[in-house]
């Protein structure tokens, strides 16, 4: 628990110190949002309907950059070796890094959602609480397998290709559920379906936050 908090604090501190990188990440997400609107064309109705899809795809694409960087700071200068030599639990290491990644993705989502409102002229029919809850659960669902896989691919050749190849098929349920829940929150939910989608997200999060925590120790030692 202590390890987890310290790793979390360390990662966030590093990110805070390197704010320019965070800004470039946000610019990347913002550019993707713009590109989606150019690709679809000036169709206000379609833009509003697909706003949630653009939001989550831009978060997913940016997440590969973020995850790659979060593991690179450990590999560079042998920081990871030193961490592994220290008597700390591997699970704590995983949960610390995964929480730091979740937090950063949440910040990214928090900045992207207002942008979506500006660019796509999105609406918010249901309460904003659903949107925030979806953002938290969705980013957590991306961060847990993402942290595991970035640790696996960190020292490989061709990791830029392997990380998305591993991660994208795995997070299909997260994207499906998060996009549906966000759409329902934005456009209205007359059938009360949003709860079911959030339940799916919670199930995914529970499975992967526990499974990846168990497997991370083996991966990081290899």
């Amino acid at each position, binding site marked *: 628990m202590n390890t987890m908090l310290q790793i979390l604090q360390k990662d966030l501190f590093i990110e805070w110190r390197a704010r320019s990188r965070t800004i470039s990440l946000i610019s990347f997400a913002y550019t993707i949002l713009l590109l989606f609107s150019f690709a679809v064309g000036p169709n206000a109705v379609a833009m509003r309907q697909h706003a949630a899809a653009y939001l989550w795809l831009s978060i997913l694409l940016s997440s590969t950059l973020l995850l790659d960087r979060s593991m690179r700071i450990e590999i560079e200068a042998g920081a990871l070796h030193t961490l592994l030599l220290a008597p700390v639990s591997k699970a704590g290491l995983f949960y610390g890094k995964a929480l730091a990644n979740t937090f950063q993705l949440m910040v990214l989502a928090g900045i992207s959602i207002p942008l979506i409102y500006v660019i796509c002229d999105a609406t918010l029919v249901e309460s904003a609480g659903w949107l925030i809850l979806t953002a938290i659960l969705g980013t957590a669902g991306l961060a847990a397998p993402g942290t595991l896989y970035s640790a696996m691919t960190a020292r490989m050749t061709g990791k830029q290709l*392997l990380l998305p190849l591993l991660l994208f098929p*795995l997070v299909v349920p997260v994207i499906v559920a998060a996009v549906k829940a966000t759409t329902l929150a934005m456009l209205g939910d007359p059938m009360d379906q949003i709860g079911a989608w959030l339940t799916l997200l919670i199930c995914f999060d529970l499975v992967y936050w526990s499974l990846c925590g168990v497997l991370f120790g083996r991966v990081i030692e290899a």
Partner: protein
Amino acid sequence: MLGLGLLVWAHYAGLVHEETSEFMMGDVGRILYAHVPTAWNGLLTYLVAFIAAVGALATSKKGWDALVEASVEVGVLLNVLLLIQGSLWAKPTWGVWWDWDPRLTTSAIMVVAFGVVLALRQSIQEPGRRLTISSVATIVAFINVPIVYMSVKWWRTLHQDFSTPETVDATLKLPLRVAAFGMLFIGIFFVVARWRIAMRRLSREMDAPELPDAPKPLTVEA
């Protein structure tokens, strides 16, 4: 050989005899005898891969590691065959090559999720790391299958109800069963053959390289 024989016999029984033709679809429905066994055995092979991956992580024995490689490869092969057969059948019956039905979508995602395991194995040189990382990727991919299926099913059924009656008539059952066993034996044959190759390669990797000949002692003539 037994598998091939059974498959030939089953396909003869299924394809040539009049009464085994499917009532609604006519001759097109006869792909059932190839398609359904491929699906069953593909899933079975992935199950073997999952068990082998757990075994490999628990024991670090190269036998399990070779089985992971063999069964994932055969599983991906069957999976690709399954998608091709499915598309061939879907065009004349549904009028489209592809449909976003949960089973189709899940099989398409499975190809990528398990195919990446093979790519991962190719890109890691060190045997110990390769064992750990490919086993972890296999376990995660396998556990993800039911979640992907669930999410896509919800995603579809909230739009429209999709159902296919799964009743198989008695006259179709015998060729189908025989074909399934035929495919099973062929699958086992492939996995075993592939396992042998993988074992040899792994053993060769782990053996020390052959030493060069020892220099001859100098003899000084008196």
